[in-house]
C-alpha cells in the first residue's frame, strides 16, 4: 500500500479545471465542492476512489474543488495530488 506522508495539491480554480488537496488520513475521506455535485457528485467520488485504488492509496483526506472539469481532468489532478503527497 502507498502512503500519503504530506499535504499536497494539484490543479487550479480556473474554468474546466479542478483543485485537489490531499493530506494524510487513516482512511479515504472525500469531500466535493462542485456546482454540479447533485448531478455528478457520485461519479466524481467514484473516479477519485478508482484513482486512489490504482495508486494503492487507502488512507487520504481529499478535498476536490471542481470548476467544471471533465472526468479525465479530475482523474489527472487527483493522481498528481496523491503522487505528490507520497514523495518524501
Amino acid at each position, binding site marked *: 500500500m502507498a502512503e500519503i506522508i504530506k499535504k499536497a495539491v*494539484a490543479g487550479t480554480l*480556473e474554468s474546466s*479545471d479542478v483543485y485537489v488537496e490531499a493530506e494524510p488520513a487513516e482512511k479515504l475521506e472525500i469531500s466535493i465542492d462542485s456546482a454540479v455535485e447533485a448531478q455528478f457528485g457520485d461519479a466524481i467520488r467514484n473516479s477519485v476512489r478508482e484513482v486512489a485504488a490504482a495508486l494503492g492509496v487507502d488512507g487520504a483526506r481529499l478535498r476536490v474543488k471542481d470548476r467544471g472539469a471533465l*472526468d*479525465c*481532468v479530475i482523474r489527472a489532478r487527483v493522481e*498528481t495530488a496523491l503522487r505528490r503527497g507520497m514523495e518524501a
Partner: protein
Amino acid sequence: MKRSMLFIPGNTPGLLINGACLGADMLIFDLEDAVSPDEKDSARVLVRNILKDLDFSGIGTIVRVNSVDSAYFEKDLEAIVPCSPDMIMLPKTGCEADVLRVDARIGALEEKLGMEKNSVRLMLLIETAIGVENAFKSASASERVCAIFLGAEDLSADLRCKRSKEGREIEYARARLVCAGRAAGVDVYDTPFTDVNDDEGIRRDAEAAKALGFTGKAAISPRHVDAINEVFSPSEKDIEYAYEVMEAIALARQQGRGAIALRGKMIDAPIVARAQQTIAAAEELGLGREI
C-alpha cells in the same frame, strides 16, 4: 492536409479540451517551454489522460516532450508513448546521435508495450545552429522521423542576433531546412509568428514560408490558424491551372505527341509534378474534380 499546427500549453485543461475546435490541422500539446518546472508532473498526467479519453479524429496530435538532456524526458516518454499520439516532437535536436538515442528508447517502449515497431513518429524541432547544419542527417537518421520544424526563437538566441518580424536573420535557416527536409523525404514546418495581434504580419510571414517550400507553419495563437490554412491551401486559380496541365498531358498522349504547350509555355516534368501536388492537395480539401 497538415498545414497548421497550434501550440497548446500542457497544463491548461480549458485549452486542451477545446483544442479540436480551433481550426488547426494539428495540435501540439506542449510539455516543454509552456510548463513551469514545478508543474511538469501535473501536465504530463493531464496530457496523457486527455489523449486517452478525448476524440481527436481528423486532427493530428503532437506532444512536445522535454529535451533529451532534461530530467523530465524519460518520464515524458513513458507517459506519452502508450497514448500513440501522431507524433512526438523532440526539442533541440542537434545531430543524428540525438535522434538515434531517442529512436532506441522509443523502440524499447514499443516492444515492452506490444506496439507496432516504428508506430511512434518523430517531428524534430531544429532550434540551434548545430541543429540547422545537421538537419539532413538528423532527418535521415530514423524511419520514425516524418517532419522537421524550425524553432526561430531559440535559434536566434544561439545565433546571437535579434528576432525580427521580417525574419532576415533566419533566411538561411529556413532555406537550409526546406532543402534538408525535402532531401530526406519529410515534411517541413516553419516557426510561429509571435505577434498575435498582427493579422497582416502573419499572412506575410506564412506567404514567405510557403514560397520557400515549407509544408506548413506553427501557430502560438488560434488567431493565426485561419491565415496559415488559407496561405498553405492551393488557390482556385492554382487548382484550375493544375487540371488544365493534366488535361493537356492526357490529350497529348492520346494524340501521340511527346511535347505540348499550355498558355504559350512548354509543359515539362516539373510543371506536371507541381500540378499533381496541387491536385492531391485540392482532393484532400474536397476541392478536386474528375479530369
